[in-house]
């Protein structure tokens, strides 16, 4: 029973919908740059993949109160674009689910509250923290969209929204739901940035995934959701692609680093392929996890060599354009992978000079069209060893 991706929604540093995001890649315009909206004492020294709208503007676009957490606003924006792609008559007769994911939750508001609260326990507006919980944004967006049949939140770090998509597909195959909007969101916060910085995996310059000189990631933010349906319910001609395989594994090595052999990534990719019945030679393009850290790219590269051997398909890390959007990355990259399958868009690395000596991977360096690509693999690996791989195929 096939599961199709019939629609999508996205917001990130590159734009506020699918067309804008693709246009940024076409123009080779990276979304990595100085902060415009979040303020941190580090802002002069670092670059981020920040969504180019402040909270007031985001809220105003949808007639929402502007005091909501940025996570809620971004999630609603992307979920709305996805939801609006579903024919109304279909919605009315379907059981609809909303599965989201986040690592930050309402942290952007909570950390502001904390600053007031710590020196004086009577200070600070409690209303700032009521949306802190990871599930609050999910409940809010589901309520706004009128989705009641199934609402759930996954939190497995950077693989979270890929896992949302997996769960959505499973619920459709089990006949428990008819339509699922699945994905995730994360917004920039000082808490997250400071934390990643103490792990010394953040690059002060534009990140260079797969490059021998890579120094780390750029933090990003955003949200993305895909609309999933069983093939018999969907309009195959307008659908973006099919979700042909998926798998999730644990690397079981370290809380925040991948094993040298890339075992978790290797198992996830192999199992996703096995589930789809495809062979490595069928894969036309890989959207890597590719954060740009020493550890991830080396481990992911090793896993790729183990699986594909000498001949690798086209590959790139779109995080070089969007930044690492944490829990949203799985879904953002799923939307990009769907665009690749549907339209043949091959997204490049932003910049690349020298391959890693250990694995010698060469990413795509220029945006171009390749209509021969029928199957796309998308990787997402999270802290805690959580490794996911999604496979998208032509319908």
């Amino acid at each position, binding site marked *: 029973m096939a599961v199709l991706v019939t629609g999508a929604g996205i917001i990130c540093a590159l734009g506020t919908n699918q067309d804008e995001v693709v246009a940024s890649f076409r123009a080779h315009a990276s979304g990595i740059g100085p902060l415009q909206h979040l303020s941190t004492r580090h802002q002069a020294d670092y670059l981020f993949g920040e969504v180019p709208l402040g909270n007031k503007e985001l809220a105003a676009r949808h007639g929402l109160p502007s005091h909501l957490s940025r996570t809620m606003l971004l999630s609603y924006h992307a979920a709305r674009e996805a939801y609006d792609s579903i024919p109304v008559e279909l919605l009315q007769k379907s059981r609809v689910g909303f599965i989201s994911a986040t690592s930050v939750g309402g942290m952007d508001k909570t950390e502001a509250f*904390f600053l007031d609260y*710590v020196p004086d326990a009577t200070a600070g507006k409690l209303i700032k923290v009521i949306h802190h919980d990871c599930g609050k944004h999910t409940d809010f967006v589901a309520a706004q969209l009128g989705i009641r049949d199934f609402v759930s939140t996954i*939190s497995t770090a950077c693989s979270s929204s890929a896992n949302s998509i997996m769960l959505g597909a499973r619920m459709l195959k089990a006949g428990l739901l008819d339509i699922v909007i699945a994905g995730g969101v994360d917004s920039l916060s000082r808490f997250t940035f400071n934390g990643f910085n103490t792990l010394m995996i953040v690059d002060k310059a534009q990140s260079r995934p797969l490059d021998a000189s890579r120094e780390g990631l750029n933090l990003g933010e955003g949200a993305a959701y895909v609309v999933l349906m069983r093939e018999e319910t969907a309009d195959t001609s307008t659908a973006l692609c099919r979700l042909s395989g998926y798998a999730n594994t644990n690397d*079981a090595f370290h809380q925040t680093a991948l094993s040298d052999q890339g075992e978790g990534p290797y198992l996830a990719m192999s199992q996703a392929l096995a589930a789809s019945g495809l062979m490595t030679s069928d894969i036309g393009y890989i959207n890597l996890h590719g954060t740009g850290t020493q550890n991830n790219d080396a481990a992911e590269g090793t896993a790729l060599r183990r699986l594909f051997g000498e001949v690798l398909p086209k590959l790139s890390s779109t995080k070089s354009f969007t930044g690492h959007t944490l829990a949203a990355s799985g879904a953002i990259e799923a939307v990009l992978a769907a665009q690749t399958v549907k339209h043949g868009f091959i997204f490049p690395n932003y910049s690349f000079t020298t391959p890693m000596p250990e694995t010698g991977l060469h990413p795509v360096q220029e945006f171009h069209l390749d209509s021969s690509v029928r199957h796309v693999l998308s990787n997402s690996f999270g802290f805690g060893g959580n490794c996911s791989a999604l496979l998208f195929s032509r319908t």
Partner: protein
Amino acid sequence: MNSPPKLLRSCSIQNGTIWIDGAEVFTGPTNDFAAFATSAFRALTIDYPKFYKMDNLAKLGFLAAEHLLAGLNFRTPGVADRTGIVLANANSSLDTDLRYAAQVQQGLASPALFVYTLPNIVVGEVCIRHGITGENMLFEAEHYDAAAQVAYVANLFAHNTIDQCLSGWIDLLGQEYRAFFYLVGAGSQPTLPDYTAASVETLFTT
């Protein structure tokens, strides 16, 4: 798996006490989780100093898994990658988030603490300890929903994705904590309960 999965065993930790299959196996300090955790860990007499670096949520999960999986070996191909972990939690990593935020407030920022500001790190710690590489998931919900969890896990069995699964609920915030872990898999003993929402709910509420 040919026959439906069974509930093989369970481990509960709450209020300074550890139960295995309903029988009390350890009691420790009830006034302070950190003291309880250290005391429970020492009682295990295992050599695993990494335990002391974990945050409270990870310690809670580690202890529950250590008891639940006692005597079982997962480090063989065909077993490791076919063992899953599916947990649910309400307060995410809030306990550690608060500690970390307090540190940042003072101009410090411990990388070792930041590592634990994600709720699924406890899953990673259990995987590292036991060599488990199969599917692993963590859901956020205000309250434990046995039916939803059983449906998810049963689906994994039905699709032959896993042969056994560590599942349950784990939550900790300040001094309020509860771990409810259970192991699902093939079981030959006729007295073992079937893996159903009802049987899990019964275990959770006793």
